[in-house]
């Protein structure tokens, strides 16, 4: 018995000892978290709290903001977005020309640019990248992998699915070392804005090959990329170079001292994944990170009072009520106009959206070029709505109103809350409302896309700074979601997409907005900004509405 009696007490002693060690370690800690390294190191190291790890660091293979926030520092695109706006600005290409038929783009490249691996950046490297994308096969053709190529260029050299379209890409030629000619199979002026997307960043062809960027292994059921380009060796021309990545913990970039443009002020960037906005805010207040994106509007006041800089990004999204004209009642323009007048959009935005949110009047955010308010607007007026219903010839208009559950988006923070307010508005104007709710994915998205919801709540987060990404996505051709055919609208949007002259394009999109407002295919009602936060000593951050931030201008005082 004695033999067994001791270990128990011994165990307790060990446990007590361990507790003592833990508490000693706690008390013996440094005065400030994150201050274990020297202040000098911290002085030029920028720690950014992201909401998740990047999916992959090969720009061709990502479509999420967490990945592009990192690859925007490592890689560069031919053209980029202008500072703080959505217009197109030079990057690796110092200038460009678009042919009359909008089918040939000629880019003049910057000279003396080198990739991080020492390889020379030139026209051949640009074409190698385009050819790589165009010749994707197997897993690389998946929408979840090469999303933006499929979206913008529609198809590949050898489409492996009959649902993919004929590719818009018609070839790339290196006219000389610094001149690239990009051919399209159909006219498109929107391609230029699309090329600002980080997915079309130019990678070192040698590194792509050396680190087997496109090698796919695994089994037929679970294919996976086995190369290390996107995880360990992303090589571009950007102001920062990849250093290391421990998933779930941190990702490190270091300054590219051979950068061709103005060199970065920071010597190092560390990304640290912290999922919840409130936890990122707490980490910033505690001084363990310097900045983060997607701040919760509810935290803004506490951040400001803690001396934190709050940075607002112009809205680049839009929430709308859509009408499917598959049903007879929605084919009645008076009814559509009546709905537009019945909804108190100001109240919805004020009650259900955070700081900085605004009423949307068009199917594109007001930060996007070509936006003006030269179109019919539908002010909130119960009387006008009632009058229009009376004129419509519908005796007891009943609306089946679909809204999603289990989803929150910047453009639609609380769908059920929006629905309650809108339902009350519609009933006040004399409509009868039949609510219909279903889970966001896949049910809700499937029914709305099939056009089976006469009245539905949706929205759009912009991908790139071109009206085509908003208006073109919705209304350029017939889609079952809206179920209408309006040739003048289709035509003006087609013309706008193909018009090489920027001034004429702007004019065409203004016309499109006017035609759309008159036709009322739906009611745009909200656009909301996003917020970033940075410690007091962070300077020179230039936030982009399309999240194309480059951290090279940031310094820590």
């Amino acid at each position, binding site marked *: 018995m004695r033999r067994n009696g001791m270990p128990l007490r011994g165990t307790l002693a060990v446990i007590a000892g361990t507790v003592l060690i833990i508490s000693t370690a706690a008390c013996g800690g440094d005065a400030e978290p994150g201050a274990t390294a020297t202040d000098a190191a911290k002085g030029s190291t920028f720690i950014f709290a992201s909401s998740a790890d990047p999916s*992959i660091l090969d720009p061709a293979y990502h479509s999420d903001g967490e990945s592009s926030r990192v690859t925007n520092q490592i890689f560069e695109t031919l053209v980029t977005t202008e500072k703080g706006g959505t217009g197109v600005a030079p990057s690796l290409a110092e200038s460009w020309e678009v042919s009359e038929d909008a089918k040939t783009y000629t880019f003049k490249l910057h000279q003396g640019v080198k990739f991080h691996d020492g390889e020379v950046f030139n026209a051949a490297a640009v074409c190698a990248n385009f050819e790589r994308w165009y010749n994707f096969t197997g897993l690389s*053709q998946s929408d*979840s992998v090469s999303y933006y190529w499929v979206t913008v260029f529609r198809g590949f050299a050898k489409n492996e*699915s009959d649902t993919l379209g004929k590719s818009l890409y018609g070839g790339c030629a290196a006219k000389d070392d610094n001149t690239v000619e990009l051919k399209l199979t159909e006219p498109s002026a929107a391609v230029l804005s699309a090329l600002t997307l980080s997915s079309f960043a130019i990678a070192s062809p040698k590194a792509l090959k050396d680190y087997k960027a496109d090698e796919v292994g695994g089994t*037929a059921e679970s294919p996976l990329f086995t190369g290390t380009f996107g995880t360990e060796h992303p090589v571009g021309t950007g102001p920062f170079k990849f250093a290391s990545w421990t998933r779930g913990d941190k990702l490190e970039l270091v300054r590219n001292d051979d950068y061709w443009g103005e060199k970065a002020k920071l010597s190092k960037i560390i990304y640290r994944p912290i999922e919840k906005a409130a936890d990122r805010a707490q980490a910033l207040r505690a001084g363990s990170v310097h900045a983060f994106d997607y701040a919760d509007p509810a935290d803004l006041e506490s951040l400001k009072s803690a001396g934190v800089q709050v940075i607002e990004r112009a809205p680049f999204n839009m929430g709308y009520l859509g009408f499917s004209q598959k049903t007879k009642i929605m084919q009645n323009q008076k009814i559509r106009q009546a709905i537009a007048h019945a909804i108190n959009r100001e109240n919805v935005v004020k009650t259900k959206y955070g700081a900085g949110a605004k009423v949307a009047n068009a199917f594109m955010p007001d930060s996007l070029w070509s936006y003006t308010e030269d179109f019919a607007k539908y002010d909130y007026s119960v009387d006008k709505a009632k009058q229009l219903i009376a004129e419509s010839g519908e005796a007891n208009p009943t609306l089946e109103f679909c809204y999603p559950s289990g989803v929150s988006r910047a453009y639609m923070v609380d769908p059920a809350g929006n629905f309650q307010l809108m339902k009350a508005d519609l009933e006040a104007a004399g409509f009868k409302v039949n609510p219909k709710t279903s889970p966001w994915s896949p049910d809700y998205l499937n029914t709305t896309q099939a056009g089976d919801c006469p009245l539905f709540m949706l929205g759009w987060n912009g991908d790139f700074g071109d009206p085509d990404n908003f208006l073109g996505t919705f209304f350029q051709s017939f889609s079952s979601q809206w179920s209408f055919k309006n040739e003048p609208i289709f035509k003006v949007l087609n013309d706008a997409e193909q018009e090489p002259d920027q001034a004429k394009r702007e004019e065409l999109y203004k016309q499109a907005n006017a035609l759309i407002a008159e036709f009322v295919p739906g009611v745009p009602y909200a656009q909301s900004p996003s917020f970033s936060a940075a410690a007091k000593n962070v300077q020179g951050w230039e936030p982009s509405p399309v999240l194309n931030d480059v951290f090279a201008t940031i310094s820590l005082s």
Partner: protein
Amino acid sequence: MLRFVVRRLALLVPILLGLSILLFLWVRALPGGPAEALLGERATPEAVERVRRLYGLDRPWYEQYFTWVGNLLRGDLGVSTRTQHPVLEELLRTFPATMELALTAMIFAVGVGIPLGYFAARRHGSWLDHLSVAGSLFGITIPVFFLGYMLKFVFAEKLGILPTDGRQDPLLDVVHPTGFYVLDGLVSGNLEAFADAFQHLILPGIALGTIPLAIVVRITRASVLDVLHEDYVRTAEAKGLKPATIRGRHVLRNAMLPIITIIGLQVGLLLGGAVLTETVFAFPGFGKFIADSIMARDYAVLQGFILFTAVVFVLVNLLVDIAYGLIDPRVRVA
């Protein structure tokens, strides 16, 4: 004893087989699928169809099941559709984090809970007793995420003595050969990294350990109270044994059985991951990874991780049974 262990391990086979079928069907019964989750709101029916075909999700379920089991037997758990990494790699990355956290939480719960429960029982009816009962009620009822925020607010934001998130200070240059950060610090002889990893465990460990602590206090108290009134304790006292001997050999030892059962169950639960704690402290562990995988309908991860959790649970329970045998000769005989 060996036969007992072998028998228990053999029992794993039917358990895992049954569970694998249930799991396989269950994850597929979730509304939506990996294709829809991957594509989000841009999921057109054509795109969904292409992704489904790519991952073989358009084949009959039994075919998919047998392929999966076949791969499993070869040690291949498949690939995560969400992260595009092999499931085994994800398991080896996230499990050490959870294990470190679970152990810290249990050391806290047991280290504080057993002495507290024991002294509460010894001084039955005293202020210490009342305090421990009230305190354990509080520990059970306080939401973990709230406690986490409060701990971070006090110790990180206000006092600045402990870190808010993660497993290691990002400014430290450390290698992680084992994935157990505390151990890595020791192995590589980097004491700063060791102390830092340790500090990163304290707040999440306390937040996670509060509920087990409350349970251990209550069970210890009740169990010791029971034993204190046993005849053999009175006999031992009558024999004139030293109080320390009575406490250690007769009271605590006999009171340990239910406590060990509870500890075993709690360890099993904690090793299954702690979604809330891991989220609040941005601690890249097992539970958070499973939760994210549910959202992404990541079939391979869900199947692999949950099966693994089942194995861990069975093994921990086996250890508990072995501990019974060591402490209580009656169990050994039975």
